[in-house]
């Protein structure tokens, strides 16, 4: 626990140090602490994480940060985290970590693909993992989360919860992984209520709470009574819009995404489509250390690393018959009998030919 908070403080101190040195220079360098440089010949591997938004989003980025912490805590490895905002910063951060001897660098999101690819070509000794990445190489590993499978189950629940027959989805940037979760969510809604209308809005920002709230409110005023999001910190705005709509119109619910957000807004979040990012990051790190991290590891419902997690406090909101159908669908998806619609953004032809596609990690 103490070591965890120390690392946390180190990350913060890094940001503060960045701030003091900000005037012109971008904040490069994996660590503000000069003595922190890993010894390339040393025994303890070094792992770094890049996120494009704040890790205090209680969602997508928070999960990755927890994963990094878990690698540090349970393996005792050196860890470092940086928030990078622009594609130019992506490149710079990958390069500075590789230069500093970090052997494994996670870029947490589809947006890191291009920069990771350039860094992987330049630094063959380091391994770059891109969450929801689209292309692979010998030292470039896309980590595929089949979040669609959980989003489909969440959609079934939403279809059962909605009385208005209108369900809304609020997204950040229109990238294939995000569109895929909405595609599956909509299919899940339709599976339970074929008459339902599904609204879709992208705000263009993962963090803009005000924008997400307005987008959510616009959907709620259009008659939606159940919303799901695929944004990061902006999700707080979606939950807040649902709370207000409930005060004004009486009935409104939300679903969480990426991480178990049932406790983030416990009275409105019926359930969450969850990726166990911490466990998957830890598995990837161990596999990397053993030399078996290659191809494009995929995690779906079958592995248990992706799932729809109902909020126990609101267990009676979802009708019992829908709950039974969700349980059946979960089994069917895991067994392969039910194929959830998805957007295939992974370019399979880039997978290294010598290495067969890995089975889903367990």
């Amino acid at each position, binding site marked *: 626990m103490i070591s965890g908070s120390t690392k946390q403080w180190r990350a913060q101190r890094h*940001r503060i140090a960045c701030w003091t040195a900000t005037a012109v220079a971008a904040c490069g360098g994996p660590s503000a602490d000069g003595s922190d440089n890993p010894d390339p010949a040393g025994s303890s591997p070094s792992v770094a994480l890049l996120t494009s938004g704040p890790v205090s989003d209680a969602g997508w980025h928070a999960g990755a940060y927890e994963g990094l912490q878990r690698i540090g805590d349970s393996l005792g490895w050196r860890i470092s985290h940086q928030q990078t905002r622009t594609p130019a910063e992506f490149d710079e951060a990958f390069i500075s970590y590789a230069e500093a001897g970090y052997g494994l660098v996670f870029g947490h999101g589809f947006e890191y693909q291009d920069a990771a690819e350039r860094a992987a070509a330049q630094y063959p000794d380091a391994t770059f993992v891109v969450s929801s990445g689209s292309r692979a190489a010998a030292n470039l590993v896309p980590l595929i989360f089949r979040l669609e499978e959980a989003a489909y189950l969440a959609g079934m629940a939403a279809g059962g919860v909605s009385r208005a027959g209108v369900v809304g989805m609020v997204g950040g940037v229109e990238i294939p992984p995000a569109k895929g979760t909405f595609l599956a969510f909509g299919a899940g809604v339709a599976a339970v209520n074929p008459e339902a209308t599904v609204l879709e809005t992208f705000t263009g920002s993962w963090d803009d*709470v005000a924008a997400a709230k307005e987008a959510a409110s616009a959907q709620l005023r259009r008659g939606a009574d159940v919303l799901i999001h695929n944004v990061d910190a902006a999700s707080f705005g979606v939950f807040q819009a649902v709370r207000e709509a409930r005060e004004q119109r009486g009935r409104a619910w939300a679903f969480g995404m990426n991480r178990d957000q049932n406790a983030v807004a416990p009275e409105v979040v019926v359930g969450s489509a969850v990726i166990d990012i911490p466990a998957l990051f830890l598995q990837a790190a161990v596999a990397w250390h053993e030399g078996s991290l290659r191809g494009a590891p995929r995690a779906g419902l079958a592995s248990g690393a992706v799932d729809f997690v109902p909020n126990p406090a609101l267990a009676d909101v979802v009708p019992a018959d829908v709950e039974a159908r969700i349980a059946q669908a979960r089994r069917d998806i895991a067994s392969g009998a039910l194929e959830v619609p998805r957007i295939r953004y992974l370019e399979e032809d880039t997978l290294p030919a010598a290495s067969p596609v890995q089975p889903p990690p367990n």
Partner: protein
Amino acid sequence: MADVGVFASFLAAAAGLAIPLALAALGETVSERAGVINIGLEGSVIWGALGGAMAGLAAGPYAGLAGGAIAGTAAALLFGLFAVGLNTNQIITGTAVTIGSLGFTGAVFQSRFGATGLALELKTVPSWKLPLLSEVPLLGPVLFDRAPTFYVVYLLAPALWWFLFRTRWGLALRSVGEAPDAAHAAGIGVIRTRMLAVLFGGFMAGLAGAHLCLVHTGTFSENMSAGKGFIAVAVVVLGRWNPPGVLAAACFFGAAEALQYVLQAANADLPYPLFLALPYVLSLAALAGWFGRSRAPATLALPWPR
């Protein structure tokens, strides 16, 4: 009926999105009239949001608004000490304040509330329902049954116009932006005037940030300023450095953003990013002088004494 519903939804969203822009842009108008362009406005907005959230948690929503305004002023003070006091480049200093503020507020938030975050539930500022005006159909509930920050904007736009163009102090402030040497010769304290104008800009931007937390969303997250400080600078250009024009421009930006959400929620198959781009295109057109003569204060962004 459905159309009225869509229209009312649009108006509500437009007003909600315009007010924080208007607050920040009205402050920036005064600052730019004095010859200082403060790109660090974005930093003041995020400090205002964090200050507003923390003061709001400790002492209630009205104290939160005050705390946000003070936090925004503090960020502007940092900018002013360098850009006005030491004559550093205004654009670079403002960029530094913004980047630093985004990082620093994140560090403060994480050390106070945990690294992986939680959705703060802030008590919001209640609406003040104005008698009669709030009864006006359609517009009444949208404009006159709102939090006091809305009324600050309605009152401040004409008041600032009167101040800038009808008072001695306003004339002095504008002369500092147009011809600081002449103003100095006339006995006006150029540095002091610029500093006060910058602090007022920071105060208003901080209020805008507190509004985001305590009126608009009822929560705080890192980066929630989301470029609103930068957009406010564009709003000032489109409003041609004239407070009522700036208010109109803020409404226009708010309306364009609201339109895309309402259109998307209505499942209208329109290229919504175009609507988002429109205000910026018009700002460029305003800068190019397409809407009559529009001139920035003559010494905008220039140090003094040179």
